[in-house]
């Protein structure tokens, strides 16, 4: 076995099938999308090369920048909510009663499909017989909000289920990481008189920084390219008030039939995601791994 793995050719051969598949369904389409973005194309007629015309249009496209702002807001909220998830995991990972059951409950949204979650929340947000508004009416609120129709609140109304959807995922990651923190360190700290807060903040969190960085990248990139719930629940409406970059791209491609411009948008989206990932890696880079 060792002898075989030392042969570079064999290694290359083994990599080949996966590499071919990846190239075929990911890398080549990305390059093609980049090329389509340089063309005026409605998906049917022959393409005409227009150079950077689409990107010029993109820079001046207010609707795109408002959707980009919404995506950034979602990314910001996702990152902030990571703190909450970390707090929940810290509690779960300490020895409290029922931690096991709670952990499973938090994971339930992860098991539901996006469309099911969307339908569920559509019912909850229903303006006249939804759960929230009925509750508010019972409390005596007269003008209950129109959650998904009011352009001022629709974006935040939709963020809530998105954050809820992924809570279990991050909690699970943090929980697993925290369980990996050696018991001895914690015990030693307790003997030295450290409080629970100090143990969490000074010992556990620093020990899982690498995991924190990964989840930060996941949350950022995941939010920037987010699509499902928004598409099902509002379709980006009313009038673009809940549009994000991915739903905007879909709308241009499949509703306005402007595939050239949509390709430019999606390529731009890819660039943004790459830059953001690189930025996070660069900003959070530490020279040495913390060890106790």
């Amino acid at each position, binding site marked *: 076995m060792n002898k075989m793995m030392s042969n570079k050719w064999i290694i290359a051969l083994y990599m080949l099938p996966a590499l071919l598949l990846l190239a075929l369904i990911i890398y080549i389409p990305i390059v093609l999308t980049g090329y389509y973005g340089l063309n005026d194309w409605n998906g049917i007629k022959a393409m005409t090369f227009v150079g950077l015309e689409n990107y010029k249009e993109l820079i001046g496209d207010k609707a795109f920048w408002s959707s980009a702002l919404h995506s950034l807001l979602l990314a910001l909220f996702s990152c902030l909510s990571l703190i909450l998830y970390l707090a929940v995991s810290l509690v779960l990972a300490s020895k409290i009663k029922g931690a096991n059951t709670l952990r499973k409950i938090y994971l339930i949204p992860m098991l539901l499909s996006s469309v099911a979650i969307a339908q569920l929340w559509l019912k909850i947000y*229903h303006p*006249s017989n939804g759960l929230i508004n009925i509750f508010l009416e019972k409390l005596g609120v007269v003008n209950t909000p129109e959650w998904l129709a009011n352009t001022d609140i629709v974006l935040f109304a939709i963020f809530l289920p998105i954050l809820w959807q992924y809570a279990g995922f991050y909690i699970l990651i943090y929980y697993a990481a925290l369980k990996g923190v050696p018991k001895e360190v914690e015990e030693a700290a307790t003997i030295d008189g450290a409080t629970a807060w100090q143990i969490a903040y000074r010992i556990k969190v620093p020990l899982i920084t690498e995991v924190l960085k990964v989840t930060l990248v996941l949350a950022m990139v995941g939010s920037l390219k987010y699509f499902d719930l928004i598409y099902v629940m509002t379709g980006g409406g009313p009038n673009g008030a809940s549009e994000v970059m991915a739903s905007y791209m879909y709308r241009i491609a499949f509703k306005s039939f402007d595939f050239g411009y949509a390709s430019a948008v999606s390529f731009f989206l890819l660039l943004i995601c790459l830059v953001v990932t690189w930025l996070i890696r660069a900003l959070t880079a530490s020279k040495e791994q913390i060890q106790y």
Partner: protein
Amino acid sequence: MKTQKMIVLLFLILTVVLAGCSSSNGGSNGSAEGNNQNESNSANPDPTSADEKVTINFMHLWPEGVSTAQNKVVNDIIKQYQDEHPNVTIKLEVLDNEQYKNKLKVLSTSNTLPDVGVTWAAGFLQPYVEGGLFASLDDLLGNGLGDQFVAGTTDAFQVDGSTYGVPLEFNIAPIYYNKEIFANHNLEVPTTYDEFLNVVQTLVDNGVTPIALGNKDRWTGSLWYMYLADRIAGQEVFSNALAGKDTYMQDSLLQAAGEVQNLVNLNAFNKGFNGLSNDEGKADFYNEAAAMYLMGTWELANFTANEEIPQEFKDKVGFFKFPVVSGGKGDANSWVGGPGVGLFVAENSPVKEQAKQFVAYFVEKWGEKAVTDAGVIPATKVDTSSVELADLYVELFNEMNNATSITLYADVQLEAEAAEVHLNQIQALFGNAATPEQFSEAHEQAIKK
């Protein structure tokens, strides 16, 4: 020895991967053979010779379970056709509405459209025709089939004077109302817009939602706007503005847009309509929480044949024409409506002639069965005396015959990009996020583009 084993294993894996890829290769080989066969076909002067085996691929959008009645009618017609033409096999592919649209788009990029498929009119059809993907059906219509259609219904499928699709459905949009709710509040069916506003006001005062609307889908609100534009500006002015023949910045169109916001501010529509889909919005009408509902005649089946809806409710449903606005240029017999979906034949189909014959047969049979079996109003003339029909149908057929003009849905009429602007602006207008001026200006720019 071990190395050899591993290499064998590796080749096994590679073969599996290649086999996975090759199924699509096999497919394209197959169609290439089909093309070869086609070449020999076209050499044959008589394409309909009975002994020749022909397969026609047909893609439609009435899946079983979603559009059960239509699905059954289609299957019946196909079975009948195959029985009468034993050499022809119809191969079906059925998709849901939105998926259908996307798939058609994808297939057209690789120029592998089905021989026969379903298309929408005007703005949807145009890029396909310009791309040379749809075959002209002029010969078919000139061959007697044209006379069977209700006058004007095939116009929306024309591009530069040639017809590229034959319509299957034809609809107009009346306002349905709940007779019981009207009676409870001593309301008469309004014939003028002032009376209509009075009805709305009375219902609001009594805590009843006047109108059920789900404007997340946007074309639903567009119907309301279109009628007001039609009644105030008149059919001709409105059509010209939509077609870009005249400016959109007209006082009468501004007034129509303003009137929409007036209705919104009167609380004429159900709460949160901009966030509700058509299905959610119309639930208020079906639950008898709302008194009126403006929708196309495709909804009729629910008020007549559909067995899942209680008879007591069906008996309460009536309809009226959109009222006339005093001082406006439109008249009460002018409708918003138009052909729904139609059939196309692919230009590069290897069995084009046979496909056309199938389309002609299909349209004819569809016309006979659609109303009675599926509650769909066909674009072909219906002999109301020979079939047993519910009163609502008969009344609406009469209205159709008396129609002075029928304005095609704005989002169908406009090209895709302008249609998107129109639909978004509708949501903005209804949500008071755009003024009538901004609304008209956005249209002016999008249409002139």
